[in-house]
């Protein structure tokens, strides 16, 4: 059953001071209130309606004041009002936030209709910048904002998803479709070879780590600070940009209850078309003779094989539910916002689940005119379960390998040949790695028998006290804490497969238990002083302060095999522990900062910002850095020559320059010479050695010291223009940015002669430059129809400028766990050259398929002539020592007449030329409609999954025979089918036809309909008796279609996790078979009281 949703941001009435004098609030079951306005002995009552000139709809809560008096009222839910007017009154003044104020003369009429024009609301929009707010018109830096109403249009799991396509310069990629899974946010390109995450600031608190604990429903605005002018106030944490999140707060003198519920079904994802049991069995049997391996006897009768469709067994339809209840409101002195939220997503991969429970409370208290406090508390409890891995987690883990699992289990478990039979027996591949690998326990067995828990408790709380000492002079102290507790375990049972399969032994797998917990506690204390003053044509706005923040991380965990019973979840019951650990580390940050805004005649604006940051991540004496920025803006519209040009509503030019830092890639104490005795004898990483068969510990220098280690630095330039035309119907923002990042804190390969293969150094520089466009056009064509079109596009030019001395390139830093087939190890798949983009794919260029022996012989003859007997154009490990017809032919890049590793070259960049979002919103009477497209263009994908589909496995090296794609099977080269694209099917892989090459590099451009929603708001009149302000029902479809040439399942590929759990930009755009995204269909209901 699907029902519900939407949260409303309908503003409830704002009550002016007059209202405050005389008011009664009547609450009856559901919240509702009436206003009773004191009446004078007046001559007449004027009634009327205030409408939005753009939409024609009534404006709720517009204020109508009688000029020259204190008499005032507000419009009702339909925009109607009624006011008593003294006979002496000359005019009515109608005001509403975001609209031009209108004055209507009073003559004899008793009824007045007023149509308010939108003021250039963008200009007066309040933007949250670090340690303060500014009006958009006064901004000198590059800041994009996303409002709650935009977020609400797309049902999302996590906040970062809500940012996708909404703002130029911000590239958001879902790394995988797992529930609660990783999202990668990059602001203005790859600015580091390590971590590229922006800094998140939630209600003034700069948090460490991502933001997926925050309930998207609680968000009021997201402000994204992009250029140095905007971010410098956050110093050495800001070079990847700053995302400021402001949560919804209670409004004065009003109350709003909103209930949102929605439920979505997620379709089963697309699957690879692979061979079924019959085709596979026949192929594997036939090739045994050709390729020289022993087939399983069962394969001889392929027709009798049981089908094992792994993808079908592992993928399922998903279900997502989301419920939120919020109460927000307050009086003159106290405003509060409370909300609870519950989110539950069953993913499209068997066993995957993500649950989240949110509590939030915001409290504002205006104790005196000069003293107020503001508090914000967020609690989240989450439980995520991804028993099959999240995908995008290295090629050997998770859904990536489903397509290569042989589609038959015959010859394995003696009890059943099905994936799982009616009696609960699981099928297994044949034992002893014969012909096929045993593939562990198989995915379904593994998912269904394991037990895991991953609980997190997250709390973020901050409270501030602000005093206005003198007019314009404010001091504020802000204290906050942020804690995150994780506890979890992972258990796999023992099994007696040995008996079933080998007829020998008692068990092949002991049970396994691992338990771990970690805790982060962080506190922040900031004190600021702010001064605002206008004198004559000059106005200044200053904020300065000091900040201290300390973060302590503790962890403990252990694991082991052979609990006495599968029921136990108890470390102390393990006979011995391995990989046990327990440690803590503390990082502290101490800073001073200041920002001065100066404006002259409201048209020449200057901002200067500086922050001095000290971080314990660096060696004493090297801890402090200073990060300055400056910017100017010119509001040309305010000049006399433009003031009367009506077509141009606003025009502003901006320019900024500054330096900011990034300390996040520095671990703790990486500057120190650390000696380590390493783990004990049983651990592979030990440093000791046995004498006389007794292990003795060793002691080694664990890392090269580097006291000069420092933060990464970005020099950023931004030139922008903001313009608005036709009464603000059309707004345009264009920015040129150039961000030069340098001194990457990188564990880079160093000459092994140092004794280390890598060391932490500050090396290299990268330049990201490009243009950002944001265009928005909104108009009403009639009273009932209003539409708005928004487009944002960002271009990216990424260039690696330098690396360590003498280094002209750097290979991929992440090991994605690719499987070796023959000599084909896929260790290097990207190589970033100085002068080229970061993470450019690296491999051979294919020249099609060798079609004849003659073609090969001619090439070999040249090689023999040059290099002697036994040489070949393409040497292989096979008996022929040379490629044979049907093998892939590679291009001799260096022209030495043979293929060697030197013939590898750059084969495509994962960085898009541009990306952007397109939105179209419209309302027609009670209906609303919204579509949102997101696209990227010009990027390449290294389709590792295609390699898998074209790899019949290998009979050498115990890899075993693997399933292949139908397309490959149907078109593979044979003497009768001389494909130019697909090599012959060959279990030996002598020629390593599946080595990294441009065959697997594809255009990754796509345009995706991310979201389409249709809503219907029940007319207020029919609800008023129920005291309900608004009821909206809606339907949303996500990922409904994608235009792409990419042949894999999903072109939205971020950075896969490497085997160490890092996402490094040199491994970007590699399709290792991620948890695929699929269509969501959501039905929702939103009720506001």
């Amino acid at each position, binding site marked *: 059953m699907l029902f519900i949703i939407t949260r409303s941001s309908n503003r409830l009435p704002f009550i002016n001071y007059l209202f405050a004098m005389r008011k009664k609030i009547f609450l009856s079951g559901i919240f509702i209130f009436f206003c009773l306005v004191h009446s004078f002995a007046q001559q007449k009552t004027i009634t009327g309606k205030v409408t939005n000139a753009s939409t024609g709809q009534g404006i709720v809560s517009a204020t109508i004041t009688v000029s020259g008096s204190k008499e005032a009222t507000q419009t009702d839910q339909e925009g109607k009002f009624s006011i008593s007017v003294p006979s002496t009154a000359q005019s009515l003044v109608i005001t509403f936030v975001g609209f031009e104020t209108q004055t209507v003369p009073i003559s004899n009429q008793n009824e007045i209709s007023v149509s308010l024009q939108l003021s250039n609301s963008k200009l007066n929009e309040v933007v949250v910048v670090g340690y303060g707010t500014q009006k958009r018109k006064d901004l000198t830096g590059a800041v994009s904002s996303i409002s709650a109403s935009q977020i609400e249009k797309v049902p999302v799991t996590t906040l970062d998803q809500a940012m996708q396509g909404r703002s130029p310069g911000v590239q958001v990629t879902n790394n995988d479709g797992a529930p609660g899974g990783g999202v990668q946010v990059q602001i203005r390109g790859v600015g580091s070879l390590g971590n590229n995450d922006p800094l998140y600031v939630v209600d003034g608190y700069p948090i460490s780590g991502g933001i997926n604990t925050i309930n998207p429903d609680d968000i009021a605005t997201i402000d994204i600070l992009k250029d140095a002018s905007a971010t410098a106030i956050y110093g050495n944490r800001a070079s990847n940009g700053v995302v400021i999140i402001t949560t919804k707060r209670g409004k004065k003198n009003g109350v709003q209850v909103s209930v949102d519920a929605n439920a979505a079904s997620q379709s089963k994802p697309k699957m690879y078309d692979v061979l079924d049991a019959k085709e596979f069995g026949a192929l594997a049997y036939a090739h045994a003779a050709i390729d020289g391996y022993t087939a399983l006897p069962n394969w001889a009768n392929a027709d009798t094989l049981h089908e094992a469709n792994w993808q079908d067994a592992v993928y399922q339809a998903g279900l997502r539910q989301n419920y939120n209840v919020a109460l927000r409101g307050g009086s003159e002195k106290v405003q509060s916002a409370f909300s609870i939220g519950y989110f539950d997503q069953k993913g499209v991969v068997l066993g995957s689940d993500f649950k989240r429970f949110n509590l939030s409370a915001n409290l504002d208290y205006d104790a005196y005119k000069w003293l107020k406090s503001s508090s914000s508390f967020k609690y989240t409890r989450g439980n995520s379960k991804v028993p099959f891995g999240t995908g995008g987690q290295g090629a050997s883990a998770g859904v990536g390998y489903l397509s290569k699992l042989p589609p038959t289990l015959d010859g394995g478990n003696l009890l059943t040949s099905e994936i799982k039979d009616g009696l609960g027996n699981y099928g297994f591949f044949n034992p002893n790695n014969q012909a096929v690998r045993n593939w562990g326990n198989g995915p379904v067995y593994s998912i269904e028998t394991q037990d895991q828990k991953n609980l997190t408790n997250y709390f973020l709380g901050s409270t501030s006290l602000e005093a206005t000492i003198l007019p314009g002079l404010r001091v504020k102290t802000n204290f906050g804490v942020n804690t995150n507790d994780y506890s979890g375990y992972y258990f796999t049972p023992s099994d007696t497969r040995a008996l079933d399969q080998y007829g020998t032994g008692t068990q092949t797998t002991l049970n396994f238990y691992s338990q771990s917990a970690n805790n982060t506690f962080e506190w922040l204390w900031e004190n600021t002083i702010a001064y605002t003053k206008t004198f004559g044509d000059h106005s200044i706005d200053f904020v300065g302060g000091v900040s201290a923040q300390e973060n302590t991380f503790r962890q403990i965990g252990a694991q082991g095999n052979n609990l006495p019973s599968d029921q136990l979840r108890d470390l102390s019951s393990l006979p011995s522990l391995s990989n046990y650990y327990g440690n803590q580390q503390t990082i502290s940050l101490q800073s001073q900062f200041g920002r001065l805004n100066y404006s002259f005649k409201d048209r020449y604006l200057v901002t200067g910002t500086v922050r001095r940051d000290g971080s314990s991540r660096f060696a004493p004496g090297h801890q402090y850095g200073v990060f300055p920025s400056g910017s100017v803006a010119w509001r040309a519209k305010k000049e006399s020559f433009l003031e009367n040009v009506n077509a141009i509503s606003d025009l502003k030019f901006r320019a900024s320059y500054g330096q900011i830092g990034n300390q996040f890639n520095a671990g703790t104490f990486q500057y*120190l010479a650390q000696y380590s005795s390493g783990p004990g004898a049983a651990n592979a990483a030990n440093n000791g050695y046995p004498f006389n068969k007794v292990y003795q510990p060793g002691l080694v220098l664990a890392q090269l010291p580097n006291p000069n280690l420092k933060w990464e630095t970005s020099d950023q330039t931004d030139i922008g223009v903001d313009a608005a035309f036709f009464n603000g119907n059309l707004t345009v923002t264009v920015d040129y940015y150039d961000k030069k990042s340098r001194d990457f804190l990188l564990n880079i390969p160093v*000459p092994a002669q140092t004794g280390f293969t890598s060391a932490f150094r500050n090396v290299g520089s990268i330049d990201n430059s490009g243009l950002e466009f944001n265009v928005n056009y909104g108009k009403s064509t009639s009273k009932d129809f209003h539409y708005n079109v928004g487009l944002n596009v960002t271009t990216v030019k990424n260039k690696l400028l330098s690396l360590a001395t003498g280094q002209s390139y750097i290979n991929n830093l992440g090991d994605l766990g690719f499987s070796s087939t023959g000599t084909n190890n896929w260790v290097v798949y990207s190589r970033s050259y100085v002068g080229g983009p970061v993470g450019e794919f690296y491999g051979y260029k294919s020249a099609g398929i060798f079609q004849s022996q003659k073609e090969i012989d001619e090439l070999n003859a040249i090689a023999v002539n040059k290099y002697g007997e036994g040489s070949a154009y393409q040497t292989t490990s096979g008996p022929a020592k040379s490629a044979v017809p049907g093998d892939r032919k590679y291009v001799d890049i260096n022209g030495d007449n043979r293929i060697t590793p030197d013939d590898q070259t750059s084969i495509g960049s994962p960085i898009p030329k541009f990306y952007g979002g397109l939105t179209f919103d419209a309302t027609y009477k009670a209906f609303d409609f919204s579509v949102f497209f997101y696209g990227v263009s010009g990027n390449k994908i290294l389709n590792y999954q295609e390699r898998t589909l074209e790899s019949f496995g290998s009979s050498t090296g115990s890899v075993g025979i693997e399933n292949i794609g139908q397309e490959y099977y149907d078109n593979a080269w044979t003497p009768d089918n001389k494909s130019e694209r697909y090599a012959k099917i060959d279990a030996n892989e002598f020629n390593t036809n599946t080595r990294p090459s441009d065959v697997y590099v594809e255009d990754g451009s796509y345009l995706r309909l991310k979201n389409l929603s249709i809503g219907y708001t029940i007319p207020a009149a029919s609800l008023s008796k129920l005291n309900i302000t608004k009821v909206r029902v809606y339907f949303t479809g996500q990922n409904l279609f994608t235009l792409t040439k990419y042949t894999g399942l999903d072109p939205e590929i971020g950075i896969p996790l490497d085997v160490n759990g890092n996402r490094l930009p040199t491994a970007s755009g590699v399709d290792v078979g991620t948890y695929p995204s699929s269509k969501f269909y959501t039905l929702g209901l939103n009720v506001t009281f």
Partner: protein
Amino acid sequence: MKNIKIIYLVILGGLLFALGCSKGFLDQKDTSHISQDALFHTPQDGISLVNAIYDGFQHDNQSFVLKSLWYNANYTSQDYFNWGADVSYNTYLFPTDFGSLGAFWNLSYQGIARANSAIPIIAQMRANNVIDQKLADFLTGQTYFLRGVYYYYLACTFGGVPLELKTVTDDGLHPRTTQDSVFMSVASDMTTAASLLPWPQDLAPADLGRATKGAALGYLGSAQMWLKQYSDAVATFNQLIPHYTLLPDYMSIQEYNNQNSAESIFELQFSLPGGATPDWSYNNNEVTWMSSFMWPWETSNFGYTYCNKLLYTSFEPGDKRKAATIVGPGDTLASPGIVAIGGIKAYPQVIAGFNGKLSLPASHFTGTDGKIMNTCGKASDPWLGDQPGQLRSGYYGTKFWRDPNVSGNTPSPADGITHIFGDQDVVMLRLGEILLSKAEAQSKSGDQPGAMATLQLVRDRAWGGTAPTSPYGPDFMQIMLQEYRHELSGEMSLWYDLRRTGLQVDYIKNTFGLTIPAGHDLLPIPASAIATNPTLQQNPNY
């Protein structure tokens, strides 16, 4: 009200000031590592520092000792082949990104750097009286010895390499030196080590496996051979020979029950802690994969190394080294340790095959007597793995088929687990090799009768009595090539000694009809090393 505001302002101002100036707030302590200041106050710290230099040889149970040193010593000789992917030895066309080259390079320099850092620390500990002179000498001697050993194998494999004799404090972009310079450095280190280390007889039992004066002299003499200082080499060898014994039975040299024997001069040590399960899950670098890696698929379930049949047929009649080196169809295993567990028929994989549990027919595991097979295949149905007609020859090396605790990748019926790894030590240098080297050195320094006499010691032991004259004469070096081959085959030094003679290219051509591409008797400098240090010149023709 105004006063309150002022008080507030003063308090806040104070706080601001306090916060802005709190000294020491950024001082955090590393509680997960040890700093140098806290170290080296006890003798054990110094001992541990030296222990860690030995650790490089054991890396991850295969990278160094098996896939670097053993591969390079044997695959290159064409008497052994890899059934898996590591087949570039067959053609000497080594890809420069071949994984084990990089591992060899990196682990060697890791050991060298550990040695370089230990030398001054040990000296400081002595100066601070933390350790006495005897311990200081013992530790320093081991340190020089180990640095020399790492350089010795680097030079044997790659030729000249960068010579780092102090902790590298700059960016490490140092070029290669010549092969001779490296061996001179080895000789220098070994001379220093020999002056500081005790003879094996004087070693405390708990120190069994540590470097000795004999080991240092052994590598010193070998380095002198490379430097063509043959008379010096003879003198060096003569110093150590009296301290070691040629075991009477060649078979016993590599036996599990005979580790650290009286013939062994330097031996890498391994151990398996009690209760540990040596299966895939036990990723421990104190054990090795030397044993089951080299068995046939029929016993191990993988089988990565097999022999050239030419090795089998090359032994002279009566040479007892054959049975201790190679096994073929119809042969039983001759190792007393393996015979004691029942021989081939005792392996779980063979039992499973005989019981029809494997893909190959039971007959493949059935002997000519109709019982479970106890030989390495039959002549009519050799053991070629589960891929008949492919690659494998049916002949397998037995130098490392000695550990009775290893049973391959099939769960043992006894405990249900697989015993893949073993803890048998790996003999790097033994008296037999020293005597052969001495014979070559004597010959090259003009003492032909002495050379023949020394050689005869080795041959007599091989025959278990009096050996006939080698049929490979009269050219003494042709005799030597065959003796190196038959004495050291499947151990840790064959190719290095062959290359040292300078006759390796002809030897390969004459014996196997294979032409080594020019310069490819040296392995290429790993691509990963050149990538991080562009000053390194690649070997010619790579």
